[in-house]
């Protein structure tokens, strides 16, 4: 089984440590993982802004780069969900003919495909508040969305519970949007920032030292609020916790 590591543009440029942790974590689990060079972006930013047709060249590049991999795994729920849900339309293909059928968000992949029973290396003696990102949650099913009457589950919490010394909490509005939304954050700056401020405060009210989640974009947004207001909480991508001590 050959796994291609998909590193979204902003992770590549701003959060490379998330990519490194993803790689190390997958390797530690015995996964044969490779990073195909020449990746830029999946095309989500323009599509969410209303320019899906501009995503097509990027989608074709992604298809080409990952053509020979059995699985494609990326540390960003939103980007993975975009590839999964929109590539068939953009590329005029059936889902089984394109990346959509082979791409996984990394926690989903580890939880559902690799299925480790323990993460012996992982230790993180801190209190974390889990950020349930909208697309990971409502489009990929990383956890049960609060709106639905289905049995409660959380793949993120399942994985975090294998980490030694960690204390896991969630905010009171457990899956309310942080207000990032790609271009929404600059087209609706007042609402977006207000949502971000509210979300960070909700995480803070748990007493957590860290906000953690499976999507760097939401964490980036909340980090922007935290740094501006010099708030006593930090953000960390979930794979950085799962890959601790590797």
């Amino acid at each position, binding site marked *: 089984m050959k796994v291609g590591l998909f*590193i979204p543009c*902003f992770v*590549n*440029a*701003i959060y*490379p*440590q998330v*990519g490194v942790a993803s*790689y190390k974590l997958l*390797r*530690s*689990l*015995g996964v044969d993982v490779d*990073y195909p*060079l*020449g*990746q*830029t972006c999946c095309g989500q*930013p323009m*599509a*969410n*802004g*209303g*320019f899906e047709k*501009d995503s097509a060249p*990027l989608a074709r590049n992604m298809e080409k780069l990952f053509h020979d991999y059995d699985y494609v795994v990326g540390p960003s729920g939103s980007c993975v969900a975009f590839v999964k849900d929109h590539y068939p339309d953009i590329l005029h293909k059936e889902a089984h003919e394109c990346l959509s059928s082979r791409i996984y968000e990394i926690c989903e992949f580890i939880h559902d495909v690799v299925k*480790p029973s*323990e993460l012996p290396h992982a230790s993180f003696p801190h209190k974390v508040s889990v950020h349930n990102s*909208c*697309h990971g949650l*409502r*489009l990929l099913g990383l956890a049960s*969305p*609060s*709106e*639905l*009457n289905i049995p409660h589950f959380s793949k993120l919490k399942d994985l975090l519970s294998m980490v030694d010394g960690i204390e896991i909490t969630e905010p009171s509005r457990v*899956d*309310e*949007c942080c*207000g*990032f*939304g790609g*271009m929404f954050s600059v*087209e*609706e*700056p*007042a*609402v*977006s*920032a*207000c*949502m*971000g*401020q*509210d979300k960070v405060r909700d995480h803070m009210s748990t007493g957590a030292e860290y906000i953690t989640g499976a999507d760097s974009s939401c964490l980036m947004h909340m*980090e*922007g*609020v935290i740094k*501006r207001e010099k708030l006593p909480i930090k953000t960390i991508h979930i794979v950085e916790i799962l890959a601790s001590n590797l």
Partner: protein
Amino acid sequence: MSSHSKAAEKFIADRPRTDWHNQALWFVRQKRDNMARSIPEWEALREAAARTKMHTITHLAYYLEMFERNATANGIHVHWAKDALEHNETVYNILKEHGVKHLVKSKSMLAEECGLSPYLEERGIEAVESDLGERIMQLMHQPPSHIVLPAIHVKRQEVGELFERELGTEHGNSDPTYLTHAAREHLRDKFLHADAAMTGVNFAVASSGAFVVCTNEGNADMGTSFPKLHIAIMGLEKVIPDYDALAIYHRLLARSATGQHSTTYTSHYKRPVEGQEMHIVIVDNGRSKILGNPVHRNMLRCLRCGSCMNTCPVYRRSGGYSYSYFIPGPLGINLGMLADPKQYSGNVSACSLCMSCSNVCPVKIDLGEQIYSWRQELDTLGLANPVKKGIVKVLNTALGSPGMFHFCIKAGRLGEKISPRGLLYCGANAWGRSRELPEFTARTFEQIWKEELSSTASCNTETARKGSSTNI
């Protein structure tokens, strides 16, 4: 900036009020969640509701004609109106024939949609809203800001001041019970002296020719009990096949809307009582055009429960008036675009694509996905935001090839280093108004990969496998 973005900024400038509005609606969402969780078959009900609506709107002529036949046999006068004007004329003509001067209305979004009250008032007919929230808004000379909770944005102190001015209540008394009693007395007088009553229609049951009106205040019943004339108005998508279908919708409606088991009053109108006349006006006003639109026809499933507004993080923080269409929130963004894209495209930005609306919708309308679709249509319609278009052009270049991508990151790094803070956080930086910008790191992941990781990847993967507890 879009029209919504500008209006939202003004609303949010009063942060304590924004927080209060947000919390008031979140409370309704929580009540809805409790109700949804109290019914084990909730998700199956939503599925049944969605399918039954889909069946009905794709067999609309069949069910509407069945409804007309049965309603007519019950003694109800059935009228058809192709648009808002024809609807208003039909209602006015019935009222004129009966010499009506005072009409008492229960809440109807269709009347809002058609601009009925101003139309009648211009022609000398007083149309009094009998729903308390609607009456508050009517006395304030403002439209409702929410389709189920019309005055949700008004604080009780403001209602106190309004009633003092309009109804002569005590100065400074904003006790809800006191104000409700005052409103009741005021409305009772209106009920007693009305010449005609108007109601909306929540459900028109084709198999029986009866229609159902759901209220919490009993105002529809009170209104229709005295006058000799009752006019009900309905959008043509309000027809449902039979009482089995009604059972599904009735279980979902109030639970989704306000977190109640059922509305306090659910009134079935089947035939006029002796000496009374009952009319029903079935209105198209663009609905059959929506039916012909395969991407957006799901909108015709809507029950008007308002749950998509209550859950919407943008609506809760920007208020109903920040949307240019008379219906706000995810529902209004979509219906506005269907009504007139040129006029209402300024609302399409009001969505972070969190998709919570699609999950709460009792008839499973893909509201968020449809907003995404509208965004894709804006450029073709010539309505795309030029600034956003510019940003996308830059992104296309920067992300178009790996060489350009890494060049831009280098340039960004340099720009970050040499630009004074004042330039980085100038007025054009919408992000930077309330948030710090993320910073580029010294090396990209691709660099780290090439310099450190790639050598480990090419090593024998068996080594890694031995060290792991899992084997795949």
